[in-house]
């Protein structure tokens, strides 16, 4: 046997963005060790430069045809590239406002930058692979870095507590993911999603592959914070340092969604089993997230529940694309991810201003009078929250509109209506945050805020540009997306389970 034939040719171009991000992380760590113990400016600068180069190389690849390299382990397609760009951008914006926040909270942990870079690299790997081994490795790289980051504020017991919860539940979920992969491997003798799709398509659904697929969906659903695997989300979002929360909310959600889309594509032929299940999961995720957010009194916790609801909206977009392949594409979902990343990071960036000295309070009560202290940031917060609600001209509105339309086109009217109802419900708690920030403090001790730094204002400006820009140029952006080829190769158009259900009851 010719050994050389077994070694795939190395396609460095396909690996470039990923390699750049990982190497930047290594360089940043070395600089962090060597630097004089005064500031992290050089580390931040190098990290931002690396992300810029990675983003540029991704941008250059956007036009190219989709191909696979490394024996199918690396997949280069439009959908993956867009998601990778979103992650690289999110990471860069988080870095912009992290330094003033870390200084304000006296967290002497410059390892934040390399760890966040590696976490981003893990997420990028998850969305750009068709091989379950790579998906698993990407997920673990993303998660293990995040476990460290969630607990990086070592003097705060809530930070450590959130890290431990995230760690225990996260590794519990990965065990399920792995067992699922093992079952699918046992059924199909392959870890490559294309091959799995072929084998599953050729035979009828066996219990082994069905249980395996369900377990993988549990693992991915945990990362994406789908109900009923969402319980960790509010705790971790509240306990983790705010810059980490922003990073986690954007990057890990984008990565998990990308991996979920790839996996659902592979098990497309089992859709009679998973489609009704995911349909109900989408309903539960939207509703539970929004209803639970109504009764919170902590801004970060509220945004945590709201991120659960947004995961539900995203799932609606994905289900629409899968139930009407060819007619409905994933463009709406990809667009929603872009706007979701911009508005969520922006909101958390503004909330990070509540850190003053070592003290940080994030209850509604603690953001009173924010507009006086930081008018620019408070103004941006209003736009981000309006976008999260889905008020016109912001990208959040167009994102929801597109997903709503996609759900209708795909014949899932019940999901579309539930999405609209849930958006209406969410108005209440988002307006509550705005109201809190614009209330003038009366009598009681005024909350303290950190000084809004130039880099924080810049981060807000970037997110603002993202939210408004994506809103104003929604048309060209959608037309340029071109994610149509990701859609499932096979699959019978599935009926809306609710319509089936109501038909049965009326009989």
């Amino acid at each position: 046997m010719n050994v050389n034939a077994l070694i795939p040719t190395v396609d460095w171009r396909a690996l470039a963005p990923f390699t750049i991000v990982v190497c930047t992380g290594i360089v940043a760590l070395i600089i962090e060790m060597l630097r004089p113990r005064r500031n992290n400016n050089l580390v931040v600068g190098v990290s931002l430069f690396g992300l810029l180069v990675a983003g540029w190389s991704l941008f250059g690849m956007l036009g190219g045809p989709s191909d696979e390299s490394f024996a199918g382990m690396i997949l280069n397609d439009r959908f993956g590239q867009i998601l990778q760009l979103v992650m690289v951008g999110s990471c860069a914006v988080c870095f912009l406002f992290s330094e003033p926040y870390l200084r304000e909270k006296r967290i002497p942990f410059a390892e934040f930058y390399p760890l966040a870079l590696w976490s981003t690299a893990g997420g990028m790997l998850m969305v750009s692979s068709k091989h379950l081994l790579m998906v698993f490795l990407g997920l673990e790289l993303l998660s293990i870095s995040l476990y460290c980051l969630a607990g990086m504020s070592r003097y705060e017991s809530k930070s450590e507590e959130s890290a431990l919860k995230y760690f225990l539940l996260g590794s519990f979920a990965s065990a399920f993911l792995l067992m699922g992969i093992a079952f699918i491997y046992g059924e199909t003798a392959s870890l490559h999603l294309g091959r799995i799709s072929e084998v599953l398509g050729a035979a009828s659904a066996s219990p082994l592959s069905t249980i395996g697929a369900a377990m993988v969906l549990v693992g991915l659903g945990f990362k994406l914070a789908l109900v009923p695997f969402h319980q960790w989300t509010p705790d971790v979002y509240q306990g983790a340092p705010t810059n980490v929360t922003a990073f986690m909310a954007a990057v890990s959600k984008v990565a998990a969604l990308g991996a979920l889309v790839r996996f659902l594509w592979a098990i497309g032929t089992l859709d009679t089993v998973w489609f009704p299940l995911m349909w109900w999961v989408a309903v539960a995720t939207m509703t539970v997230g929004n209803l639970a957010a109504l009764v919170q009194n902590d801004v970060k916790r509220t945004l945590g529940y709201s991120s659960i609801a947004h995961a539900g909206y995203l799932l609606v977009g994905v289900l629409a694309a899968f139930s009407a392949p060819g007619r409905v594409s994933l463009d709406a979902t990809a667009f929603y991810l872009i706007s979701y990343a911009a508005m969520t990071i922006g909101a958390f960036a503004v909330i990070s201003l509540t850190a003053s000295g070592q003290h940080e309070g994030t209850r509604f009560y603690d953001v009173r009078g924010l507009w006086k202290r930081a008018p620019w940031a408070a103004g941006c917060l209003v736009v981000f929250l309006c976008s999260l609600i889905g008020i016109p001209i912001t990208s959040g509105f167009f994102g929801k509109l597109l997903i709503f339309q996609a759900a209708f086109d795909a014949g899932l009217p019940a999901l579309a209506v539930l999405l609209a109802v849930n958006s209406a419900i969410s108005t209440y708690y988002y307006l509550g945050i705005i109201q809190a920030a614009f209330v003038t403090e009366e009598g009681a001790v005024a909350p303290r805020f950190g000084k809004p730094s130039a880099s924080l204002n810049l981060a807000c400006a970037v997110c603002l540009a993202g939210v408004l820009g994506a809103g104003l140029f929604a048309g060209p952006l959608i037309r340029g997306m071109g994610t149509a080829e990701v859609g499932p190769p096979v699959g019978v158009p599935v009926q809306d389970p609710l319509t089936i259900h109501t038909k049965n009851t009326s009989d």
Partner: protein
Amino acid sequence: MGLVNDVPLQWFLALSLYMFVLGAIGVMVRRNPVVMFMCIELMLNAVNLTFLAFARYQPSGALASGDVPTAMAGQMMVIFVMAVAAAEVAVGLGIITAIFRLKNRADADDLGSLRG
């Protein structure tokens, strides 16, 4: 060698399923984070056993046809799972130590300050 070949696949799967369920119950029942984490490790070992059993009993002709990446996927996965589990141990014990330093005890029932 001959001894292993005589054991049918179902036995391996039954053992690994038993380990997996035992681990899952352990995570849910026990309250000490270290023990909970040991249970998760047990689940990962069950996964490894499943992978190896399936890889050993795969009737595929992939190896004969020279498609080594496919034929060796199961064994390859096990190596990666072990490496990742080791990384998780390092991070997990670090987090548990940090909590212990802060509170002088580590128990999942004490982790109640984040709630709502």
